[in-house]
Structures are given as C-alpha cells and as structure tokens.
C-alpha cells in the first residue's frame, strides 16, 4: 500500500478499499463454512440498500468534516425529512416533486442554521449541531408517536424497490451524489477553498478565502444529503418515520464511515471516494453478521473495535509522516 504512495499520494484512495476486499473475502469464507451464502442476490441487494442510506448521509458529512466542522444533527434531519416527504405526498403521485422540493428546502434551512451557528455565532460545531438536533428531537417527540403520512407509490416503486440486476436505484443515486461531491471538491473553487479552510483557517484567510461563506455552504450541502437520505428511507418504509434516523445511528455511523475512509477529523484532508469505501465496509460487516446471525449487541462491539483500530492505524501513519 505504502509503496503506491510515492507516485501520487494525494489521489491514491485510502487503505479502506483493501480492508473492504479483505473483509469481504474473510467474511465470505466464514459464511460459506457456516453453510450460508454471502453473495446471494437478496444479501447483496440488502447490503447495497444499507450502503445507500448511510452513504447519502456520509457523503454530506464528508464535506463538513473536510472543512473542519461536523454535523451531529443529521440523524434528526433524516427523520424529519421522511415525515415531511411522506406527509406532503400523502400517497399522491402528483405531489411527488413538490414534496421532494419541500423536503430539501427544509433540510437546507436546517443546514443553513447549523452553518450560521458555527461561523457567525462561533459556536463549536459539536455543540451547535447537537443543539439543533435536540431541538428537532423535541419537535419530533412532541408531534409524532409512530409512522405518519404515506409515500407516493411511484417513489416507493422507483427509488425504494426498483433495481438494475442486483443494484438498487438508490445505490445508483448514492454513486451519482458521491460523484457530484467529488467533482465539487476537486474542480470548483468552493471545493478548494473548503479543503483550505479545513486545513488551516488562518492560511485560508490570508489567501483571501471567505471562510464563513464556504463553511455555511458545506453545512447546507450536508443537510441536503441528509434530506435526500430521508426521501430514500420514506420510499423504503412507505411512510414517514420519526425515529428512523436515530435508530439507524446515522449521526455516529456517518462520521465513522468518513473517518474509516481516511478523512481527517480535524479537516483539510480526505474525500468522498474513501467515504464510499467506509460506507461499503460498514455495510459489508453488517451483512456478514446478519448471515452469521450474530447477536445485535455483539455486532455493535465488533464495529466499535474495527473503527477504533482503523483510526489507530491512520494515527500511526500520520505520526510516521510527521517524524
């Protein structure tokens, strides 16, 4: 791995893909010995569905983390988005596009507020976005006891269940969003400035970058991605679900995926390619454990260990580079 670094270190996708291949190979072996099949059609489809939901959130999360910020409100944004989408559609295909538009507008507004709190009110992103998240939680807990609204059948059909071979539409949506995010980071001024702000806000400022504007935009994009994940989950569930975001641990898992993908939590280094790898890795572990019918709680423990180990490996590498 490290040999390849010498040529174009920056563009080499991080070791997460090696880890992914190894995990799938070892997982396949164990599952086969256990008498199951890891790469059957249903398992593969379900793996890609899990990856699609988490991936949409994680791609957005990558943008804010690269900029040196963080968004812990995404899980609540996901929940709220399923409700806004399903309730506005109310089972009517005609309301499909307005409903999606409204959902994204609501998400973007939340992201905008997050961004303003972080930049203009200078509140630590951790606190600011947890605060906004709790605010949304209050609204959701107060207004909803269970599922509400009804997703438009066309959306359930198209985004929720349609697939090309084993690949669901939703996973293609993730790939499209990830590609767009990659393009933004690599080929737009905004992307360059975002990475610079995450790397060193003072250097960026002295170079004439308007840091606040850049970070607010990143927060809006992050919330938009969470909103899109909400729309997708509404298509899967057929209704709005007020707890789907928190129960799916979309906040912590999205950050875990970003970090597994090699993006520095402090900002300034990383990208969406690695994040997609991290998402696939987490989804694969999930699929393998499901096949093995491992206890849910034990599964969490193993995931925790993997994330800590991965970050430790990155930290060691960073130290070696520094010395």
């Amino acid at each position, binding site marked *: 791995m490290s040999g390849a670094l010498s040529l174009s270190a920056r563009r080499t996708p991080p070791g997460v893909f090696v880890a992914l291949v190894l995990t799938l190979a070892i997982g396949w072996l164990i599952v086969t010995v256990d008498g199951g099949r890891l790469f059957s059609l249903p398992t593969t489809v379900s793996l890609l569905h899990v990856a699609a939901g988490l991936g949409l959130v994680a791609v957005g999360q990558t943008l804010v983390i690269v900029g040196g910020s963080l968004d812990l409100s995404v899980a609540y944004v996901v929940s709220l988005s399923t409700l806004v989408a399903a309730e506005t559609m109310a089972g009517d295909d005609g309301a499909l596009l307005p409903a999606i538009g409204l959902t994204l507008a609501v998400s973007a507004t939340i992201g905008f507020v997050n961004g303003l709190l972080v930049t203009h009110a200078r509140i630590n992103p951790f606190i600011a976005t947890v605060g906004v998240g709790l605010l949304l939680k209050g609204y959701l807990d107060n207004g909803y006891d269970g599922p509400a609204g009804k997703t438009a059948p066309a959306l359930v059909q198209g985004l929720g269940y349609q697939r090309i071979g084993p690949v669901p539409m939703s996973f293609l949506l993730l790939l499209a969003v990830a590609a767009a995010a990659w393009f933004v980071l690599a080929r*737009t001024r905004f992307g*360059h*400035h975002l*990475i*610079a702000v995450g*790397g060193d806000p003072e*250097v960026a400022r002295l170079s*004439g970058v308007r840091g606040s504007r850049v970070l607010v935009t990143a927060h809006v994009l992050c919330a938009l991605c969470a909103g899109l994940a909400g729309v997708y989950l509404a298509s899967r569930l057929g209704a709005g679900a007020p707890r789907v975001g928190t129960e799916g641990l979309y906040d912590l898992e999205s950050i875990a995926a970003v970090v597994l993908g090699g993006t520095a939590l402090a900002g300034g280094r990383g990208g969406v390619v690695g994040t997609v790898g991290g998402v696939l890795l987490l989804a694969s572990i999930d699929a393998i454990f499901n096949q093995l019918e491992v206890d849910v709680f034990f599964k969490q423990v193993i995931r925790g260990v993997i994330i800590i180990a991965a970050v430790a490996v990155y930290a060691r590498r960073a130290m070696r*580079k520094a010395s």
Partner: protein
Amino acid sequence: MSGLPPSPLLALRGIGKSFLGVRVLDGVDLQVRPGDVHAVVGENGAGKSTLMKVVSGVYQPDEGTVEFAGAPRTFRSPREAQQAGIGIVYQELTLLPERTVAENVWLGHEPLRRGLVDRRAMLSHTAGLLASIGEGSLPPDTRVGRLGVAQQQVVEIVKALALDARLLIMDEPTAALADHEVDQLYALLRRLQEHGIGVLYVSHRLKEVFDLSGRITVLKDGRAVATLDTADTSADQLVRHMVGRELSNYYPDPAKPQELGPVRLTVRDGGNRKLRGIDLRLRAGEVLGVGGLQGSGRSALARALFGAAPFSTGQVTVDGAPVRLRSPRAAIRAGIAYVSEDRKGEGIVAEQSVLDNALLAGRAVRPGRVGRGARTARVRELLAAVELRAAGEDQEIRFLSGGNQQKVVLARWLALAPRILLFDEPTRGIDVGAKSAIHDLVRRLARDGAAVLMVSSELPELLGMSDRIIVMRDGRIAGELPAGATEEDVVALAVGTVGEAAG
C-alpha cells in the same frame, strides 16, 4: 543601471505608530527601489515587525504616508496590500501541507475555465513561475508537506509572485533554513532582483544583511537612526548604530566575590532539537544572564533545565549529583523553579484566586493533608514579603497587574524553597516601578544562596542584573561575558560578528 536612479517602488515618509500610548514607530523614512534588496535591522523591540506590518496592511500608521509605485496608498488589510503588489513571506510558513504546490500557490484566486477550476492552467502557470526563478525542478503537483523547509519557502515566494508582487517583504526568511538552503535563497533573491522586484529584508543575521542587501536601514527604539549603503559600511559601524543607550535605570549591586558559593548546577554537552553542545556552570549566589536573539535558544535553554523540553543528550548535575530532568516535576523535585516568559499561557491560571495560584506547585508536588496549614501560612507570608498589591487573596489573579501577577508566581516557587531559579523574561510586560521590585527580589534570592539563571532580551536589564552573561546563537552558547560588558559586546556575539569559532 546607469543614469538617473529609478523612482522608488516604496517610499515611507514619517511613519509613526503608537500602541496604548507607547510610541513603537516614530517618523520612519525608508525607500526601496525596484530591484533593491533593502535590509532592515535592529534589536528586539526596535520596531522592525511593526514597520513590516504597516507596509503589509496589517496595521495602519497613525502618522506619515506610504507611497507604493508612485501613488500614496492606505492598505486596510493584508489582502489590499497583496492586491496592490506587496507580497509577504511570513517567518512562519502559511502553506497547507496536505495540498499540492499549485493548489497552495493559487489558493484564493484559482484560475477558472467555464466556471470550474482549471487544473491544467494552474499546473502550467505554477511551473512557469517556478522556472522563471530557476526552481523549475520542483514539480507543481507535489504535496507541500513532502517538501523541505527551503522548498516550502520557494512555494511561499511563488505564491506572492502569482499575485504579481513587485515588492516582497521577507521577515527572518532564513530562521528555519539549513546552511546550504540559505545559499539557495541567496540565488533566488538575486533572480528576483533581475526581475526588478524590490525586497524588504528583515534579519538579525548581519552576515546575510551584508551578503544580500544594497542598502540598510537601522531601527532603534522606533526611529530610523541610519540608512547606509552596504558597500560603504562595516559590521562594527552597523552594530554601533544598533546599540548605544544610557544605562539609566537603577539595578541592585552585583554579587561580591565572597557571596559566591559552590557550584549548584552543571550541564555538560547538553543538546536537544533546539540546543547543541551546551556547557554550563551555575554557582550559588550568582545571577547568570542569558542573552541572544529571539529563537537563538535562550528560552529553549531555560525550558531544557526545567524539563519542559528536556535535553536529549548530555549530563546535568545538581549540587554535584547527576540528575535526569525529564519533566517539570522531576526538575521541581531537584529544587529547580521556572518563571516562564509566557505569563498568561504558562505562568498563571487566570481564573483562579491569588492564593490558589500561589499554592499550585506546592499542592502538585507535595500533595496530601500533612502540613497543609503550614504551607498556606508560608505562602501568605511570602505574598506579604513580595509586597503583593491585591484586593485579597481570594481575588482572581487575572484582575491583577502584570507585576503583581509575577509576584504571585514568584511566591509560588519561593514556597518550595528552590535552590535554582530560572527566569525567562521576568519583567516582560511589567511597568517600571514593579520592574525594579522584581529586580530587587531576584538579587535578594541570589544573596540568600540561590543560583539564578535569567533570560532577558532587554539589554539594559541583562547588563544591569547579571554577574556573568552567556550569549546564545543558533542553539549554542556563542560566548561568555563578564560583568561590565557593553551592549555592543552582547549584540556582536548574538548576531555573529565575533566568536564564529563557537559555530
């Protein structure tokens, strides 16, 4: 370059600047012509950095005018100065290690093509700029973190050139460079000159000033005391312009020979990242002054002796017994106390009371209930002995004046009855009255048998307080001076016009 001299690129006329009533710059005139390398020299605190910050738009002058390229200008921000064509190469590099050379050079003004960043143009423009200053071998798509300091400086300069800089301000550009890298910088500067770019070069190192510059302006106490043609000037002349002040303040009497006790502390061949080959003896009853320029290793020496940034090589003894000063805790246990130059950051806990601050080290090193009452009583005595002026011992220390804060820090250490005291800039940011109180205290401690090492960048204080002075340069002890040395002696050692043998 014959005939009429070209009109100046930069002309400063009568620049004055005050902070909180203190005049930092006073009527400074200075001119830089295209293709000139104009050096600005002076002691610490002479006003060099303030002057550079005025030119680069960080500060606005209270008086006087800045003319650039023939027109009077007011720069309200570094950005405005950059856009006008004034590039700054900061002492600390302002690059992003995770980004490529080209990405760093064009940060903030990336070339666009159909709304998108034109990577090809970015790379080729960067390559062109690098080639134009003879650094064509540096690939523009390398990550900056992989480059050495000298190459990073090249990138920094190219970054300024990408904004069409016609004047470059370089503040101590060689501070972080190795010798062969300095040569590269020399060559680079000559090429910039050929392109007609003016350079304002701030340096402590006289050798560089003489190698590079065409003209030199000497700043002293905020005034431009001389502007000289380098060719007609000798190093001695320059040093004489830099120093020469009356020793007007009062200082306590130095130690008499019979007051000097046995050797308390020795260092043999001590070294770490910032220090090399330190040999040192410190006797009970003496005040050993440590002089040198900023970054010469003065503070590093004090921090090494206190275990804050320990020696990695060499031997240290205290009272004849070998000790390993691996941490401040170990040093405190060996009887060493340290008063940091960064009082706010390392000296006091701003939001705790006077008493808590004074008890801090005692509580940490000798915790437990035994003797607690006695300790508090002792600290109270000491606070009275140092003539602390505070509303009460429960007052938060941040509301005290700098001098009184320093007295609390002193009381904290005195409570541990240290045998060796390390002071780093003990009177920085302290008003004149409190200053002499601190000076008296330091001398009294020595008289009571403590060995004192005192770092100071204020020459009068260094000369007035010390029984002996060592001068640091580039992490080594450049030389030692007896009591009665002059400012010129210290500066000459510090900037390296004498005592090269030590290097």
